[in-house]
């Protein structure tokens, strides 16, 4: 099976991984810079806290570095790293139970949307974060992988170890729940 929709597959990664394994530790910075933005977004959405997300992403990057020789397909380093991060997010989510319910507001991104009223968009965005936080972890994970990371169900199944049918059901229920929660919030 080839992960081709949302997860990165880069020939360049194999060359960088080879450099790192040959002792050029500094080359790993290229991979860090390359993947941090996409993966930070997933971690923030999944964990609901920028601090937790940074911790999870840093831990995933360090784990990946220390186990780089075990990356069987360096061209798919991004997919492999994402799997590590997803597992780490699951562990963090289970341990903390999302008790803190911290919501991330990216004021810069909100203000960039000049075609809408910033205050309205900020409120809408906060409602989305709250609704997302009220999904159970499995539904939130499935929703984010499908609709934010744009993965196919086969990719999601490979990543999570959950069957395609179960994932479809989780996404369906997550969408239904998000719709209800957001419609309630908007009165």
């Amino acid at each position: 099976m080839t992960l081709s929709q949302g997860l990165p597959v880069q020939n360049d990664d194999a060359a960088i991984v080879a450099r790192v394994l040959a002792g050029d530790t500094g080359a790993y910075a290229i991979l860090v810079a390359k993947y941090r933005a996409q993966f930070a977004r997933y971690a923030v959405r999944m964990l609901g806290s920028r601090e937790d997300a940074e911790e999870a992403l840093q831990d995933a990057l360090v784990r990946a570095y220390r186990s780089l020789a075990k990356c069987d397909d360096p061209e798919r380093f991004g997919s492999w790293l994402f799997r590590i991060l997803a597992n780490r997010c699951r562990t963090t989510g289970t341990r903390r139970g999302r008790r803190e319910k911290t919501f991330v507001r990216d004021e810069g991104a909100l203000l960039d949307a000049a075609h809408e009223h910033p205050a309205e968009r900020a409120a809408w965005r906060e409602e989305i974060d709250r609704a997302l936080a009220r999904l159970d972890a499995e539904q939130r994970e499935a929703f984010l992988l499908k609709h934010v990371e744009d993965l196919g169900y086969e990719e999601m199944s490979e990543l999570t170890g959950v069957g395609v049918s179960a994932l479809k059901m989780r996404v369906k229920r997550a969408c239904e729940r998000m719709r209800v929660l957001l419609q309630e919030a908007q009165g």
Partner: protein
Amino acid sequence: MNEPEFDLFIAKVARELKEPVELDAQFDARVMASLAPAVISLDSRRAPTPWYRRQLSVPAPIAGLAAAAAFAGIAAIGMLAREPQGSTLAAGSAETLVRVNDSPDREAVVTAPVQFVFVAPSTSRVELIGAFNDWQPTPMAFDAAAQAWRVTLSLPVGVHEYQFLINGTQHVVDPTAPQTASDFGSPNSIVKVTPVP
């Protein structure tokens, strides 16, 4: 279940969630700084248990694993406690790790010899990979008398994860050693190294 039809409402929600997030400006530097230092176990700061007093029995689940390995033509006898050169026995559990600064006045790293043994007489090549060699294969020598592959390394006191690499392709855990959960699809074996008394 069929694919759901395109949902404009959900697409609108997803669009918001696809907005990038900002990380701390020092994030990359923090990650890179955390790669270099070696790690040792907090256990090294405690009074060690003499190796001859440590538990030598094989837990029941491990016996089952050993049986499975034997079926495949591979069996491991793990680390030998009473090797002539005083090798350290492999046994233990996961420990909290602490990073050691590279400052000149840090404590000297205490090491102990550890012998790894893997019984696989029909295999042409066995190597040892682990956190202690950055998962770079260390060749193991075949001992014809014992029909086993051996290598002895001097490892820092603490807990180390490792696997055996068979013929350069097959990763195998040590069925006689404890294992740790892994994010990478397969568990690692654990060796706990204590100072030689």
